[in-house]
């Protein structure tokens, strides 16, 4: 079970990374409109 002493901090580090990525996405307006972009892929 000693591996947990590595895995838990690693998990926390990944959590911080995921949180940072999400913050970046929100600040860039990726979540401002969740409706229209689904249309762009159909035809551009």
């Amino acid at each position, binding site marked *: *079970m000693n591996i*947990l*002493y590595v895995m*838990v*901090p690693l*998990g*926390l580090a990944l*959590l911080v990374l*995921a*949180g940072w990525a*999400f*913050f970046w996405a*929100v*600040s860039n307006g990726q*979540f*401002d*409109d969740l*409706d*229209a972009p*689904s*249309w*762009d892929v*159909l*035809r551009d």
Partner: protein
Amino acid sequence: MSAASACFHCGEPLRGSSLSVAIDGHSQPVCCNGCLAVAELIAGAGLIDFYRYRKSPAARPDEAALEPDIWAGYAMAEVASQFVQRTGETDSVTLLVDGLRCSACSWLVEQVLRSTEGVREATANAATGRAHVAWDRSRLDLADIMRAVAQLGYPPHALNDASLIQLQQQEQRAALKRLAVAGFGMMQVMMFAVSVYAAEIAGEVMDAGLLALFRVASLLVATPVMFYAGAPVFAGAWNSLRLRTVGMDVPVSAALVLAYVASVWNTFRGSGEVYFDSVTMFVFFLTLGRFVQMSVRHRTTGVTDALARQLPAFAHKWDQGSVRDVPVSALARGDVVLVRTGEILPVDGELMDAEAHLDEAMLTGESKPVRRHAGERLSAGTLNVQDPIRLRATDIAAGTVLSHVVSLLRRAQAQKPAMSKAADAAAARFLRYVLWGAGLTCSAWLVVDPARAFEATLAVLVVACPCAFAIATPAALSAATAQLARQGLLVTRPDTLEALARIDAVVFDKTGTLTSADLRLTGCRTLADQDEHRCRQIAAALELASEHPLARAFAQAEPLEPACDVRTVAGSGVEGIVRGRRYRIGTPQFVAQLRGAASPAASGENSGTSGAGNAVEAGQAAAASDAPGDGDRCRRPPAAATGPGGQDRRASHAEDFLGTEVSLGDETRELAVFELRDVLRSDAAATVAMLRGMGISSRILSGDSHDAVAAIAARCGIAEFSARCSPAHKLAEVQAMQATGRRVAMIGDGVNDAPVLAAADVSIAMGRGAALAQVGADMLLMNDRIQAVPEAVALARRTLRIARQNLVWAAGYNLGSLPLAALGFIPPWLAALGMSISSVGVVLNALRLLPRRADRPGNPGFRLRPLPASPAAAQPSQVA
């Protein structure tokens, strides 16, 4: 009328138009030059997919808005600077776009803007009706952008409340980040907590070092959840404490702080319980609740935006005898502005005509129209309820208009439905008992068993949080409001849903509600050797200044020139001077009065009038002297030929004719008789049947002739109807119905319906009706489906039922769990879970008001519909 005679672009009847456009190799009919221009533009840009994916026909483009010239004002630097944000070489603007109804519309707008040379970025959002555009300043200007959008048939409005938009965007982004932190954090902490619980349940002893690791990791994760995601809760609690009140946030904060501090203490001590799981879960659900509330609030702001759009973007500028539409922002002090009947004054100004009747309710709250005389100062934002007037602009007060918009927004946001207010008050009372109960529990346990005092107090604070109680009603109401908006009904006042659920009678105004808003000119009998075309041109000139549904029937003919000295007489018709001759159009009696001795003052004054300028001044005196009933704030009833005083002699001897007849005459003779017909809406009969099925009676109160109303009533299956009602009569009828204990919903669209709409328990205005009716209405129907009304009543009834269920459930939960928690049967983690589940249960119950995914009308993103070979069978309608 068969399906093949509907316009391919806007879905409205063709009205004998022979125009057509080639789409994908097929020739499709269109109803007017406006639709033709837009459809050709769309086809030419290779964007015909729009027609494949759209959910409803496009709005019929206003031909005036397609004129490129009216946007030229926005090219001026001083005008553009009000709206445009400048960063380096790039200008950007936020536009409120009329008619952005579905994703296909926003896609079309985006595609066209992006394919414009010089545009760097374009996004359109159908949910908010807004488009954001950024462009290269050296290659384009604001006018080009507005023109590009307008050419598609969507009139754009430049927004200068950028600060409000940015504020909302920032708020939404911050809330989303908080929600993510709380959500991620809760999941991580739960992972640790579940493994600890699992070990306990399995009876195994966890390695002490590992346990310590889990606790420290939980602490690390819970700390940002507590202080970042939970910050608004603590701020709220601090505010209410400073104001010496007990808000919902106070016991919540107390519980959070207690649990967190105890957990941190125990973590470093290395023994005792930790409650990080409860803390993070609690914060997550609180944040979720706030997020949902914020979304609802932003959506309400969207509705008030729709109201704010009522403020004119353009003014009719009087320029050497002709009328030109210019943006309000392009007006200057001293300009003469024409304000037509039913329009809102765009600027502060001095009245140039003899008198005006204005509804100043927007500013003063007084709904009775005020009479103003020549030279008086009129305020922007007030409504012209009677004759067209001219005013000289004294203040181009962007401030006046802006403050008006702001007050509208504030009103909508400040008002809370009575039901929610009652629940809030009950929750506040309950909270005091909770704090007392927590104190009592703590002291009792300290006497009985001090070791358990902390846990029990914590459990009481958490479990008794009346969150579910507080969100029970708003959750149901917001779900219903969202659903109604999807059906095209906008709720403008918060108490409307409650009132709508209780109505038992619906009153229709015939023109424009049961029938489509536009009358059709079906015939023209000319008398005295007159040329039919010329008669139509004169009629068009007279009706040019009017916004009445009847006036639009004449709009197809090219007016000779703008009529001057135009005077509207309620219930009778319009009088004005065209090419130096005085004409009247309206009831036969009204027209006959002009050539008879009925108004000697008028004929005496006008014998020598020839030039437009003099005639206006001279005619004013005469017009003022014989203007009927000043107390009558309303204009003609829907059909001018059959007003309260008018005798409809013609309609009676042509028995098969069920339309309306309008007469045109000058000072010596009658020139022509126009026949106008109503077109019954295709879903009118189904609407009445649905209402009857719900125990709601329908009734028609119309100003039309008896025969015309009877025919409509028979086709819809309505037994009760009254014809030839004046506005005052309609009002009396509605009040009489209310006096017998009935709750009345009034559906109207005309200017003359405004007082009746105000008196009814629920008023619904058709979105295409005159601006005046919309201002006072509780609900706006934005599309042509009148069947949305009975559906809305059914939804409102279900909403009340669900809100009641929610309240009972939440109250039961709080009252039932409190004693259990006080007696120590509920550990804190279970209390947090119970609190969360009760809140989530309430929200899920409210979500039943939204349609299930499978029920939603075809999600076009996933299903490709073939382009119809024949024109859209959108609205087959019948000729009444």
